[in-house]
């Protein structure tokens, strides 16, 4: 008796779902950590761009007002009730959202995570903005591009000696070093992600290596402090500061010339790619399984790895030509 009732409900629900999906455009919900954050507003712009390109997609940009998992659960529940076709989420918590997202998938909704991931149980696929290999290669490439033709000396200013991210990126950078002949990495110093210590370490690097050409700082505190130290030492044009930073924080350094270029993921591309990925999975053009290749429009293609996650692209490079467009975004 009970079972029959349940089956009927499921059948009715599935029927309704199929009907609504066939009737109008595909509705993709972009769920962000919180509304009003520049980074995510930019991602929403990218999602709209993807929607226009695809034509038959409607974007629902939503999220809680503060960065909590509870807030996102409420948002997801209401999206399930609205019977959207796909949810692309940047999660506030890796595990807390899993039960709710599982429920969404049971109702036939395609769930992908992007930027900040959900545990594999709670999503079909995940899109990372970049990968450690790509970041490691990018930071040394940025330094090498601005060096004199015959190479030069480069030093790394990291966060703490135990920062996992930075250590992996520096390791990946060291691996690809043979591809950049003439580039001599003289060592790594640690600014502990403190503005004053990073500044002092950068000063020390310039003092003990008067012929230093570049400082690579794969940390947002370090890169800003190093740029300031270069300006104060009067070495703009001689020592180039590069690495990973945010456009809003680095605008001054680009302006002063202390930094020629730096990189970080582009939120617009990320929102665009997440939407593309969700679209193709929901449409059935691609299946979420290890090794699957999914087209992400103008960004090319991504390949899912063993945990169904993929890396979008190289970090995006910011320099004087585009910094003004991005400095107000994030």
């Amino acid at each position, binding site marked *: 008796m009970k079972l029959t009732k349940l089956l009927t409900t499921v059948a009715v629900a599935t029927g309704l779902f199929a009907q609504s999906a066939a009737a109008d455009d595909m509705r993709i919900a972009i769920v962000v950590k919180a509304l009003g954050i520049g980074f995510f507003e930019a991602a929403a712009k990218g999602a709209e761009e993807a929607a226009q390109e695809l034509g038959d997609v409607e974007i629902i940009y939503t999220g809680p007002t503060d960065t909590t998992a509870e807030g996102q659960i409420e948002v997801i529940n209401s999206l399930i009730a609205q019977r959207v076709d796909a949810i692309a989420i940047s999660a506030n918590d890796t595990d807390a959202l899993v039960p709710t997202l599982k429920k969404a998938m049971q109702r036939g909704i395609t769930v992908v995570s992007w930027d900040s991931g959900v545990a594999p149980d709670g999503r079909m696929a995940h899109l990372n903005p970049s990968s450690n290999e790509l970041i490691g290669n990018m930071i040394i490439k940025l330094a090498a591009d601005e060096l004199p033709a015959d190479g030069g000396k480069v030093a790394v200013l990291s966060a703490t000696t135990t920062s996992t991210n930075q250590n992996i990126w520096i390791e990946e950078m060291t691996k690809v070093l043979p591809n950049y002949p003439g580039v001599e990495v003289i060592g790594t110093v640690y600014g502990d992600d403190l503005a004053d210590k990073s500044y002092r370490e950068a000063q*020390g690097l310039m003092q003990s290596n008067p012929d230093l050409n570049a400082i690579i700082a794969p940390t947002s505190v370090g890169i800003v402090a190093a740029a300031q130290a270069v300006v104060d030492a009067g070495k703009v044009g001689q020592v180039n500061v590069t690495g990973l930073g945010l456009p809003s924080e680095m605008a001054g350094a680009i302006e002063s010339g202390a930094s020629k270029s730096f990189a970080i993921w582009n939120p617009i591309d990320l929102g665009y790619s997440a939407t593309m990925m969700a679209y193709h999975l929901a449409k059935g053009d691609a299946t979420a399984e290890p090794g699957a290749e999914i087209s992400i429009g103008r960004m090319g293609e991504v390949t899912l790895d063993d945990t169904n996650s993929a890396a979008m692209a190289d970090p995006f490079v910011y320099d004087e030509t585009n910094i003004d467009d991005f400095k107000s975004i994030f």
Partner: protein
Amino acid sequence: MNVLKSRETILFAAILALLMLIATRFPGFVAPTNLLNVWADTSPLMILALGQMVVILTRCIDLSVAANLALTGMVCAMINVAMPGLPVIVIVGAALIMGAALGAVNGLLVWKLSIPPIVVTLGTMTIFRGIIFLISDGQWINAHEMSASFTALPRIQVLGLPLLGWTAVLVALIMGIMMSRTAPGRAFFAVGGNPHAAVYTGIDVGRTQFWAFVISGMLAGLAGYLWIARYAVAYVDIAGGFELDVVAACVIGGISIAGGVGTVVGTILGALFLGLIKNALPVVDISPFWQLAISGAAIIMAVTFNSRTGRTKGRIILKSAEIAQ
């Protein structure tokens, strides 16, 4: 004889020895221009340590100085962003007043509610950091948002030394005169040296401690502006953990944690000792894994030395009795 034995002389000798040691590994460090830069770089620490000195003299401690610095600095940066045309000197004035007000909060809690200073300032330290988060929304204020004159002031060179360094000189002079030549200055020593005796001489212990916190807060506010302008960035975690450096500078400089003992010159030398180590470690090519251990060892050695010299002094109560033996 007395001069040779004094703590300041010994510390000064230690600093010279340290400089020579650094020079053997990196001769460029002892160039006069670099030493002036080290002085300037250490200025915020010296200014904060001088404020902390007054507080410690009265048997209190102010752990909220770094948070006060960060909060005042953030407010200065926000004022500058909101009103870029406002003369920087007005912002410096606002920083002094605001820092003093934050210090007064500590002082009032210690004075009127008799809460132990370490608890009060541990609490306000967290509160101040929390307020920065609330007013800034966790966002950074960056170099390109600040006006040019705002970040330029500490960098103006006068006779080869940046204004940042001159500020420390000025603060040291004012504090030196106040501590040795004025009644309030002597009251700080009296309150810390012997609170009961101080009461009998008509000194209000609580009120004196209150003023010590106000001075410490005011100097922290000043350092807040200087810090933000120097590093051209303001965010929640600015100067995180710096309060420990400040207390360490005082201890190395011979300020007795038990109160009542200490000098302005000692404090300056203590801060300079730490500043030298901080500035030298990046250039002498020592593994970063060792750097923290070396800084810590220097502090422990200084404190050990401090307590040993203090002990012999304290034991001789009756000179004549000792001679009689």
